[in-house]
């Protein structure tokens, strides 16, 4: 609660007036000579207790009535957002998260979280009166002064976008602004849906922000309006990759929903170069990947389109755009150390390019690994000791951009590690015995079940030699002793795989079972998704913007851009000069992970922040309501209670001078 007329709170001293009057009254007694003193003394003795309590309550009611009146005059604002101890604020910096996830609406489809928060902030600012409002929005990240709170919902820099939000960055910007502007008594209001991706609690900038905030000469309060209500189940769709493959456009799509409510069907519409088609997709679980193939003519030329589902809680994640170019070969690299035997090499190269169209494998020695064309590589198989920098850095960037690297056991021991994984010692099975697989991940990864649901015969794998894997990984298949056969570490869009045995008869029967082929082809397919990535960009990021003389024009017709000022932050298919690029919302915007209270506490530790959680963003409860009327009502109630307490209980009607009946 805050008070617009804080000085009036000095009037709270007036609560002592009833007590003072009472004490003065006690001193202003009249003296009377009295006969029935024995009864008076007895009554005085007996009256201690209930009556005294009643008297104290009467005084309390009077004092509370005065206090309520003073509070009412001080014009209190309530709503939880301001908490207690607010006051006159000169500058309010609103950190506005206008990322795609803020376009979620709960009850009323028209009232998104962003709209709701803008209305509430406008109302609150009107209540605060003379305070200056500066907005730092998540798209531009720049402080911009708002002339009047009323126009807040209509401004370009408060309009919806498909971009993400960098909350720690915006907070640091806000402090920089406040320092520069010498804004006096100020407050930073953060309006966000507490999406963990946006807040990045492990980001090192939080420490800088905290340090900077504690350095401030003036007191800056941080208030967080958390719009984290999730009443409706939200479905989203995303184009994971789009690429030409054998005369077809292969769209890897991903459907996600917040809550798994059982099997359902989702209508997925595809608009490909203006030709629309729709299909029902059976959806089970929380997230589901599926593929759509669209027949193309020829193997060259660019194209684009979008995939959409029916509108639900958040319209912004119901569409995803794609663009594609010429067909490129699925290129894989085999980095093999010189000690690799011919049989293993042959087995691997055959598995990487078994003769399907457009698959190539290039073999390189570890020394020539720098020649690898990371841009074009779909998969890199590393049958050599784990590389050192700078190759390992290149490899890591490759993985981050969506590439897949499969490490196979090197022939020699090595201390190196990659992405936290490293090789251990070679283990050999005792004579006449094998290492066999106990369990494996059937829903995901290289050993997942076939599309018809039938499992791979992983249990037929027999190995006589394996190399141990250590580090932080997810095991996709385990030997009987619990050691991993296949370990995976996901790094951003890409994957790092460690296979603990080789497709060689001196190691295992992987070659005979052809399971290595399955694993390699599936990994190749996973890595191929990034090939079309040059046609994709994230809204608001540099890659989505024109370079040099390029002119940026939107080519899709899904939705018209209503505000040209926000075009840079809108998803869609754009032509940048000769290039075609599909701009989508960031992956993090579809993330369901919310910031926990502990995360928030650690990020804003010792900042004295206040948090208001608005579960229902579409509700009309404003951030600050003037509540002086309630205080007046409270005052009336206190006065009524005081009057009731003052009322003497009705005594039985008796003659004041009863004349008893004479006795006989």
């Amino acid at each position: 609660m805050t008070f617009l007329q804080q000085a009036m709170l000095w009037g709270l001293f007036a609560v002592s007036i009833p007590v003072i009057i009472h004490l003065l009254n006690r001193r202003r007694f009249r003296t009377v000579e009295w006969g029935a003193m024995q009864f008076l003394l007895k009554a005085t003795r007996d009256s201690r207790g209930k009556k005294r309590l009643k008297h104290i309550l009467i005084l309390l009611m009077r004092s509370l009535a005065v206090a309520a009146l003073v509070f009412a005059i001080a014009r209190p604002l309530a709503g939880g957002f301001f908490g207690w101890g607010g006051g006159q604020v000169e500058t309010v910096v609103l950190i506005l998260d206008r990322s795609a996830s803020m376009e979620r609406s709960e009850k009323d489809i028209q009232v998104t979280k962003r709209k709701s928060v803008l209305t509430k902030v406008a109302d609150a600012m009107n209540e605060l009166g003379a305070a200056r409002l500066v907005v730092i929005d998540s798209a531009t990240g720049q402080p911009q002064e708002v002339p009047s709170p009323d126009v807040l919902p209509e401004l370009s820099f408060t309009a919806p976008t498909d971009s993400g939000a960098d909350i720690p960055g915006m907070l640091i910007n806000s402090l920089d602004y406040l320092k520069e502007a010498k804004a006096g008594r100020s407050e930073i209001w953060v309006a966000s849906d507490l999406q963990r991706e946006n807040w990045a609690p492990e980001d090192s900038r939080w420490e800088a922000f905290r340090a900077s905030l504690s350095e401030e000469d003036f007191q800056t309060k941080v208030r967080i309006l958390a719009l984290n209500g999730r009443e409706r189940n939200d479905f989203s769709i995303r184009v994971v990759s789009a690429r030409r493959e054998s005369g077809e456009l292969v769209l890897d799509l991903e459907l996600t929903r917040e809550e798994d409510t059982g099997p359902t069907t989702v209508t997925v519409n595809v608009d490909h170069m203006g030709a629309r088609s729709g299909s029902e997709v059976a959806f089970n679980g929380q997230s589901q990947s599926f593929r759509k193939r669209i027949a193309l003519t020829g193997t060259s030329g660019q194209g684009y389109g979008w995939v959409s589902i029916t509108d639900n809680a958040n319209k912004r994640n119901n569409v995803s755009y794609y663009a594609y170019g010429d067909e490129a070969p699925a290129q894989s690299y085999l980095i093999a150390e010189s000690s690799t035997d011919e049989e293993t090499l042959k087995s691997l190269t055959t598995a990487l390019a078994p003769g399907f169209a457009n698959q190539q494998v290039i073999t390189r020695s570890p020394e020539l690994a720098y020649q690898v064309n990371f841009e074009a590589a779909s998969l890199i198989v590393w049958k050599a000791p784990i590389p050192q920098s700078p190759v390992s850095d290149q490899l890591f960037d490759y993985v981050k951009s969506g590439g897949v690297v499969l490490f196979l056991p090197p022939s020699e021991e090595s201390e190196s590690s990659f992405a936290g994984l490293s090789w251990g010692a070679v283990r050999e099975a005792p004579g006449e015995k094998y290492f066999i697989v106990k369990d494996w991940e059937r829903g995901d990864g290289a050993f997942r079940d076939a599309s018809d649901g039938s499992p791979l015969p992983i249990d037929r794998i027999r190995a006589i030699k394996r190399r141990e894997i250590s580090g932080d990984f997810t095991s996709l298949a385990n030997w009987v002793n619990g050691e991993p056969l296949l370990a995976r570490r996901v790094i951003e869009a890409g994957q790092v795989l460690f296979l603990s045995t080789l497709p060689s008869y001196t190691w295992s029967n992987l070659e005979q079972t052809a399971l290595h082929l399955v694993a390699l082809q599936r990994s190749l397919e996973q890595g191929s998704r990034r090939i079309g990535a040059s046609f994709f960009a994230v809204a608001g990021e540099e890659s989505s913007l024109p370079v040099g003389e390029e002119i940026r024009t939107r080519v899709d017709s899904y939705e018209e851009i209503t505000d040209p000022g926000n075009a840079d932050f809108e998803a869609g298919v754009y032509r940048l000069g000769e290039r075609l690029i599909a701009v989508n919302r960031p992956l993090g915007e579809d993330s369901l992970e919310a910031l926990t209270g502990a995360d928030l506490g650690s990020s804003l530790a010792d900042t004295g922040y206040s948090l208001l959680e608005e579960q229902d963003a579409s509700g009309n409860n404003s951030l600050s309501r003037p509540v002086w009327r309630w205080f007046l009502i409270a005052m009336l109630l206190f006065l009524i209670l005081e009057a009731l307490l003052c009322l003497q209980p009705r005594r039985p009607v008796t003659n004041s001078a009863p004349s008893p009946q004479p006795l006989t």
Partner: protein
Amino acid sequence: MKYDFLDSDVLSRLGALPVEARLAMVGNVVGKHRSPHRGSSVEFAEYRKYVPGDDTRRLDWKAYARSDRHYIKEFEADTNLRAYFVVDCSGSMKYASGEFESKIQFARRFAATMAYLLVNQGDAAGLSCCDETIHLELPPSRRPAHLQNFFEVLGTLEPKGETGLVDALHTVAEKIGQRALIIVLSDLFCDSQSFADALQHLRYRKHDVAVFHLMDPQEINFDFTRPHRFVDLEDSTTVVAEPNLIADEYTSAIREFLTNTEASCHDVQADYHLVTSDQDYEEVLRDFLTNRLPKKGKK
């Protein structure tokens, strides 16, 4: 009139009303009140058998003629009444609220008027004024000249100090040898049990007791509004009190006191009259005398 507590109009209005005793009285002269002894009045009492030594003049010859037995015909004896007014002169009797008279003034009016009526009908009236000690005592007399002294004493009464009512009643009970009408005029602000014992004493001595419990209306209703410093009229004890805070307890205590006092009087078959200062003493006296008139068929 010389005495402000006497009103000739009231005296003339009440003059026709006789003062009656409820019990048989023992007087020293012939009067109009019933005596426990047989006497020579015209009121037939009973027959009894003649025993040697009886006055033969009292033989009922007609009864002898009818029954051939000797019977003595006995008649009621009529005697005079001696009334004793015990007036409480403690400081609390001085209390008067508002426009009403003090309790002592009421007691003066009542005692004087009734004494006048008694002497006027040939009965004797005595006075005992008590505070901490009985300081004034006027033996009963039926001489009209006695009234002068009676009124003088009443007129000079000055209430002060604590009450000596209980001791006074015991003294009266002991001093008065023969049956009498004892009229107590007091606010009875004394120990209830001691007062009840004193009444028992009077009753034991076969006195006819009438208690006039004098109270000021404010002493019963306690209708003060603002804080007051109450100074005791008897011993100057001071209490500062908020009337609102204690009114309930006070009225509850006073009602309990009135109930107990009335019950004590009932126990000894004494007349109890709660009289407040706002009542007209003439009314009170008339009611008292009227209620004492013998019922039809009885003397």
